């Protein structure tokens, strides 16, 4: 009897499910039928369950709100508002096949009919297969998270087919250049010549680590060792011991997994006398000092693109931080991840600008206009190169920039690189003196 009633309740629940779903579906389609000019639909398909994805979506929504407050985007004589639709592709989660992420993207394209797609996929391998999907549906796509250099290679292979794909975010090649320049600076400043690279075994980090190894060898540094850790590794004593015994002066961590926090803490507890210069995703947000109870002291961490932290020489980045703090609260601003939000925010403006110049929503016209983009943004000067990648450099007047900051007591992030953005000099932490 008991079993029977249980089964009954469950069947009821199941019957109710589709109803609830139908209700949800109905609501969202009602929203579309507003009065006034038809909105321009911006699709954001990304891994909303990850910090980078969630932050990027918030940044996009902020920009959209700002543009709509000014009346929208002029298209062919009429001002049209922007509308954001988002979908979670779970790209950051383990055990999720590529097809699941692509299905999300395709669902959005075919059902919401977005006029453009921003932020885009999370994982590099998904980006590469998503390019074919974008080519099929011919929708302008400005990605800002996945950073494999294979993107440009693939685009160069068939520029006509893949011309709808753009990337605002930093790619691994630029990251190597930045890291190289930072190392050069470290070498000059402190006379460092020995480095140890520890990276995560994923596409973008492998690429960055390989590129950096080459740079070190070409510039007379000694690479004491390079280790790649599988995603999810939780003990880094092997590399840290080798780095300590090899007397490495700099450790270059390249990680976007939360466990990299262990590396940071373990390095301090093992008292490895080396400066960490690289990217550790959990240490990028402003709340990092508190989270790691000061273990981040001295770490030079990259913000792939400026934006999550105000840089005085780029006024827009200061403004972005203020507005973000106003809309979502100061606490959320301090949690902004080091990769994604800046370019995500800018991509809305770049798109609006391109649509305005193209005078229509026609994908090919918008792509043409995007190719000639030349505007100021949160990340600096935004221009695409012939492979549809935003050009990064060291001068915000000429190119977009990424920056590095150093954690200093009592828990502040001080921009130290590049020179135009630097607000203080890199200092050696107490444990290195």
């Amino acid at each position: 009897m008991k079993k029977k009633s249980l089964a009954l309740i469950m069947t009821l629940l199941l019957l109710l499910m589709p109803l609830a779903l139908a209700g949800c579906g109905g609501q969202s389609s009602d929203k579309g039928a507003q009065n006034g000019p038809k909105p321009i639909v911006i699709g954001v398909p990304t891994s909303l369950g990850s910090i980078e994805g969630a932050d990027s979506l918030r940044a996009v929504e902020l920009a959209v709100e700002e543009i709509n407050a000014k009346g929208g985007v002029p298209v062919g004589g009429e001002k049209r508002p922007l509308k954001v639709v988002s979908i979670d592709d779970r790209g950051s989660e383990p055990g999720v096949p590529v097809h699941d992420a692509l299905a999300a993207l395709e669902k959005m394209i075919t059902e919401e009919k977005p006029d453009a797609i921003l932020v885009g996929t999370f994982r590099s391998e998904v980006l590469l297969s998503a390019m074919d999907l974008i080519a099929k549906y011919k929708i302008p796509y400005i990605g800002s998270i996945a950073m494999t250099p294979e993107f440009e290679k693939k685009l160069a292979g068939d520029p006509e087919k893949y011309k709808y794909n753009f990337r605002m975010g930093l790619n691994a090649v630029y990251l190597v250049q930045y890291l190289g320049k930072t190392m050069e600076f470290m070498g000059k400043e402190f006379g460092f010549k020995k480095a140890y690279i520890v990276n995560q075994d994923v596409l973008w980090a492998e690429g960055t680590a390989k590129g950096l190894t080459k740079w070190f060898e070409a510039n007379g540094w000694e690479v004491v060792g390079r280790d790649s850790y599988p995603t999810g590794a939780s003990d880094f004593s092997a590399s840290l011991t080798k780095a300590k015994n090899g007397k490495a002066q700099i450790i270059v961590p390249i990680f976007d997994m939360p466990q990299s926090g262990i590396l940071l803490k373990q390095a301090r507890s093992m008292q490895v006398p080396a400066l960490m210069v690289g990217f550790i995703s959990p240490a990028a947000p402003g709340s990092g000092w508190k989270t790691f109870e000061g273990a981040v002291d001295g770490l030079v961490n990259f913000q792939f693109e400026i934006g999550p932290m105000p840089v005085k020489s780029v006024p827009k980045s200061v403004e972005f931080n203020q507005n973000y703090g106003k809309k979502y609260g100061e606490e959320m601003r301090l949690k902004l991840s080091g990769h994604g939000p800046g370019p995500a925010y800018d991509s809305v403006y770049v798109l609006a600008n391109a649509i305005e110049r193209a005078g229509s929503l026609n994908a090919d016209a918008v792509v043409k206009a995007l190719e000639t983009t030349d505007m100021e943004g949160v990340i600096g000067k935004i221009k695409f190169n012939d492979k549809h990648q935003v050009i990064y450099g060291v001068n915000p007047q000429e190119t977009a920039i990424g920056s590095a900051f150093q954690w200093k007591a009592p828990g502040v992030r001080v921009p130290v690189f590049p020179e135009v953005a630097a607000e203080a000099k890199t200092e050696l932490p107490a444990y290195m003196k």
Partner: protein
Amino acid sequence: MTSSVLIFGLVNSAILMLTALGFSLIFGLSGVANLAHGAIYLSSGYVAWIFLNSLGLPYFLAVPLTIVAAGLLGAAIYWLVIMRVRGLGLSEVIATFAVGVAILEFFRWMGFVTYEFNLPVLIKGSLDISGVSVDYQRLVIVGVGILMAALLWLFAHHTKIGLALRGMAQDEYTALSLGIDSDWAAALSMALGSAIAALAAVVTLPLGIISINLGYEVLIMALAVTVLGGLESITGLVVGALLLGFARTVTGTYFDPKWMEVVYLIALVLVLAVKPSGLFGKYKELEERV
């Protein structure tokens, strides 16, 4: 080099053993492969964080509360879910897995994906052991690991409840005829196993930060250690953890860290192929192969 391998190998083994202990205990005592183990481990971490940061409880109150809460959660999972599919091996597996995924993804939905979730260490600072600095927290882990293994062995072999549970695991029908309530025993073992998982979470999570995907990884690690050592013996578990812990550290130090994950999977496959009941499992030739 050698001393650091010895020390960190031991630490890693202790971590592996602690994370696997709860899983192995439940499997050994009630025969349920609790695939929600990773979720229980991780949610204990988040619960402890909420107790400490949102409610502002002191450490020595928050930790016991977390452990008790996890125990209750385990018992609840048994009464609400597992009991209804008990004996249907596959349904058990799918049901516990679904519970685990639901819990983990619930935390993801709640927004527990940012980087501020961090549990405090018990004692700060580090100690110098023959030229290798080890932090106290890692030593605490080794200590807790040894203590738990010893306590559980005593519990299973020298208390009435422990004996009753083991009797249930050995022969359910005979145990029933001796007046041991099967559901009660299984629920108790679930509660106990979950509480141990919570303890493991509280001592091992301070090494890094808490993140959702850890829940899935912990489950796989627990499975590997348990299978390697033998599905029900504590001795086997200790040896399995030591083997895996040292295998990983040695590989990481002398070869390349990228082989670390490969090594333990190879060990797992080899042991399963050659001696399926684990290195120290009871010899059950007829049940495991033909």
